[in-house]
């Protein structure tokens, strides 16, 4: 059981990184990104393709970060011409485009069968220690991303983001480059998602186009809504809770003697119901965003 829970914890931590990334975009700035999995995929495939060609893992990860930052900035720039909902659809389309490229470009990505035998970390350690080491690594990266997120949203830049979120004209009239702010927040948050992708690829030693489907984006959205959109701590809590919910419901058919195939649908139902329930009854999430209080010290 411990082994199972450790596995859940590592994946929850990696999803936590994705949640922080989405929170910077949607929570702080009001950017409705429905294509988050695309940035995840950039990091994952950068790692997969580089290691496949024998490159050392830091290079793969770095390539993923740089590509994601560039892609994020480009997508952010689109926010100039596209209104919120249209931008959301565009991000969804772009992520799907990436998935299709991964699916069909055999020479680069090995197509549908994916890239396997990606070197994992901590291979010298025994299974239990390896899981603990992974948990430590994932938690460390999560903490780092959380720290960056807090700093980025804490000062004037953060205020600009929040103003862009609700009253972009007011922001512009006060001298803030609205488009530039969107570009910058995307350039900061997209690499976080890519980092999550690289980590996950090293964790299961595999990446395939099946992991780039929109469902992953919506799972992170659920985590962010349940946890508290706009609250960095909240979204991490949301990631942990939703991941736990999703994985622990695997035990439904053990406890309740439901046929396994129905249990699978039931689990998706539970996640969907949680999302809808929160949207309707507690849209702020479990840990809602709070008004920032600026006192004399800060």
């Amino acid at each position, binding site marked *: 059981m411990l082994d199972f829970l450790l596995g859940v914890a590592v994946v929850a931590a990696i999803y936590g990184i994705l949640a922080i990334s989405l929170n910077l975009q949607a929570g702080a700035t009001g950017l409705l990104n429905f294509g988050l999995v695309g940035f995840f995929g950039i990091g994952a495939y950068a790692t997969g393709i580089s290691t496949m060609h024998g490159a050392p893992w830091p290079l793969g990860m770095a390539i993923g970060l740089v590509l994601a930052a560039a892609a994020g900035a480009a997508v952010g720039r689109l926010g100039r011409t596209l209104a919120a909902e249209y931008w959301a659809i565009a991000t969804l389309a772009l992520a799907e485009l990436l998935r299709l490229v991964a699916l069909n470009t055999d020479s680069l990505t090995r197509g549908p069968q994916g890239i396997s035998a990606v070197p994992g970390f901590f291979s010298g350690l025994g299974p239990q220690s390896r899981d603990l080491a992974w948990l430590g690594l994932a938690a460390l990266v999560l903490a780092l991303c959380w720290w960056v997120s807090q700093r980025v949203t804490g000062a004037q830049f953060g205020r600009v983001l929040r103003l862009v979120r*609700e009253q972009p*004209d007011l922001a512009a*009239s*006060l*001298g803030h480059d609205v488009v530039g702010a969107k570009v910058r927040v995307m350039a900061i948050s997209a690499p976080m998602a890519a980092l999550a992708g690289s980590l996950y690829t090293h964790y299961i030693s595999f990446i395939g186009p099946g992991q780039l489907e929109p469902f992953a984006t919506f799972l992170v959205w659920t985590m962010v809504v349940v946890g508290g959109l706009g609250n960095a701590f909240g979204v991490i809590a949301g990631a942990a809770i939703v991941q736990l919910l999703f994985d622990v419901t695997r035990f439904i058919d053990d406890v309740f003697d439901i046929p396994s195939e129905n249990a699978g649908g039931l689990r998706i139902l539970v996640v969907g119901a949680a999302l809808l329930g929160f949207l309707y009854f507690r849209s702020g999430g479990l840990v809602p965003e709070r*008004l920032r209080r600026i006192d*004399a010290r800060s």
Partner: protein
Amino acid sequence: MLAAEGVRKHFGGLAALDGVSLEIREGEIVALVGPNGSGKSTLLNVLSGFLEPDGGSVTYEGRPIHRLEPWDVSQLGLRRTFQLAAQPTRMSLLEVMLAGARLPEGSSAWRSVFRARRVRAEQRAAVERARGLLEELSLLPLEHHAAGMLSGGQQKLLSLGAALMGDPRMLLLDEPTAGVNPTLRRTLAERLRTIRARGTTLLIVEHDMNFVAELCDRVYVLDKGRVIAECAPSELAEDERVVEAYLGSVRPTAARRAPGATAPPPEVRT
């Protein structure tokens, strides 16, 4: 200081601005009046960079600004407020005021992360100033409240405060008294005079003729996208074109009452 030269703006087949020229000199308080649909807000948007004109030009302190982004115009020292001063619901008054300040350290994402101490120091000074301004605007007790929860009038005051945080050399105000109660209007006029005294030139779009007469040096009258008159507030009532434009609506009381009138004429309303 600010000059518009032959500004034209079309929306589909409609000419919202049809060759508007005006000039505001440093230190003035100028009003821009006109009936609904005359193009006042459109003109304000063009002057502040929120709309690009189809023809003509706008120069500010000698340089053309009509092709600049609104935030660049603001950075040059020309700020504006909005008719509907909608404030964010998830930011406090103090935060909105700070957002109006020029904080180069804090505005950089990089420095927010890696130079937190410097950022905090820069912010402390701004917080002091913001609270001072809020006090002048009688909003200080609400400093930690959500800005979007304020009443309409208070939100307008907050807009003004936030704009002032950037030490603008010129301010374009879009109907600053709409929705503000009469007592507050008087204080507002006082405040604007102080602001001018401190070195900010003002262009005010207004409907309240009393307010205009009390405060402004000059008035431009706009109708159907054209400037039809430019005069002192006291001369407005006499100008036939102005009266015609308003279709015989009321004259300002600051001039003189028509002999024999008993009740003060009501104010011009939207």
